[in-house]
């Protein structure tokens, strides 16, 4: 369906020289990309910290979270300036609105990385390898990070088809989350001395599931930015059309 809908070429009327507003928007996009990569790296580090039980690495994540927050504020302020000074309209307006919301979703994903890092710091001993295996948390990590990377690619290349593919991929993450309950409950029953560990792990899985949700929100914003279609609160079937 979307292949037939060619969006209006945003620069059809413009010359090859960038206007002041275009320069600002390009800068804004590159800033949000930096934020994105920072969050991806934060999540990746918590995966390594979990696997290797590397508390130093987890502490590094906690301290880098301040930088993610600072970047969020900077991007918010830049959006505010563009609204106030340039009064963007049409695709430009949608871009600033989308960046503003993507920024918020990324910041929340950054918080999640910090939260997981804190669990790792609080844990007393390395996480049971069998538990990690059975809950599929590492797979969940790989999937969420890959989704986060692809949704960034979709943003950079303005690829709404790719953005739409995110909705389906998030299902896998949801599935792992749902199954984790039974797995962790079993583990706790058979290892009553490791209840705390099980609780940490289930909390981490819940958090990672939220990252998937943030990615879905971001994908919706990308589609709104490019096609001006609002997909929020629509059924999955409708979104993928």
């Amino acid at each position, binding site marked *: 369906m979307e292949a037939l809908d060619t969006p209006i070429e945003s620069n059809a009327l413009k010359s090859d*020289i960038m*206007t*002041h*507003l275009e320069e600002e928007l390009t800068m804004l996009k590159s800033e949000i990309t930096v934020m994105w990569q920072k969050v991806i790296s934060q999540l990746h580090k918590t995966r390594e910290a979990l696997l290797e039980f590397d508390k130093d690495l987890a502490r590094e994540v906690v301290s880098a979270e301040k930088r993610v927050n600072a970047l969020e504020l900077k991007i918010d302020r830049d959006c*505010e*300036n563009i609204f*106030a*000074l*340039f*009064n963007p309209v049409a695709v430009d307006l949608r871009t600033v609105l989308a960046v503003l919301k993507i920024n918020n979703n990324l910041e929340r994903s950054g918080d999640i990385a910090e939260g997981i890092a804190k669990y790792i710091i609080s844990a007393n001993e390395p996480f049971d390898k069998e538990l990690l295996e059975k809950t599929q948390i590492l797979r969940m990590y790989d999937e969420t990070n890959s989704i986060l990377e692809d949704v960034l690619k979709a943003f950079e290349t303005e690829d709404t088809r790719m953005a739409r593919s995110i909705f389906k991929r998030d299902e896998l993450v949801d599935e792992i989350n749902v199954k984790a309950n039974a797995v962790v409950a079993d583990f706790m029953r058979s290892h009553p001395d490791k209840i705390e560990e099980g609780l940490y792990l289930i909390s981490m899985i819940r958090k990672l599931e939220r990252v998937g949700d943030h990615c879905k929100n971001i994908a919706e914003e990308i589609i709104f930015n490019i096609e001006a279609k609002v997909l929020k609160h629509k059924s999955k079937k409708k979104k993928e059309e």
Partner: protein
Amino acid sequence: MTTHKLLAENVNVYYDQAHVIKDVSLTIEPNTVTAFIGPSGCGKSTFLRLINRMNDYIDGFRKTGHILIDGEDIYDRKIRVEELRKKIGMVFQKPNPFPKSIYENVIYGLRIQGINKKSILDETVERSLRRAAIWDEVKDNLNKSALSLSGGQQQRICIARTLAVEPSIVLMDEPASALDPISTAKIEELIYELKTQYTIIIVTHNMQQAGRVSDRVAFFYIGELIEYSDTKEIFINPKKELTQNYITGRFG
């Protein structure tokens, strides 16, 4: 001593009994764009015209206070107004090219100065038209009458004419208000480009324009300078209620 491009100190202007500028002090830094905004009759144009002494010949005009440019009082007796205006160019609301060729329009100022060497004139024409972002549109028709161009093109020719005498300050009195949106956008982009080489002061009624082109905004109201600050400050968090009312269009 001072790096200010322009320094105004306790400036008052009277037209007969009318007190039209009330104790205005401000400084303007080099290579910036400053926008003067405010409702009609607030004194912004009068203040702009003070800067190249265009009010001097208005009946009943009287000024107190000082205006210094590059540290020099421009109302000092030893200042020659013609010399001052070489340094301070002005672009008006309506494009006002002379009924001459594009080429002659641009070099008008140089001719007055007695410069007639063709190589200098040619070079000036190309440089000025390029800076005014109109070279590509007119380079093959330099002998065409400037009046045959569109309004937006005429305005850029007028800007080129102003730049030809190498001013350091360019004053603009609503330079885009008589133009269509595309021409306006071109002039705005031009202003943004020009500030790397000039100090620009622009009077505008268009709030969005002030936001888009300026670094600093001065809001005038009934002869007073109410608020003067970074453009971002003015448009996001103005300190005075009057400013907020004006820029949000809530003026009673």
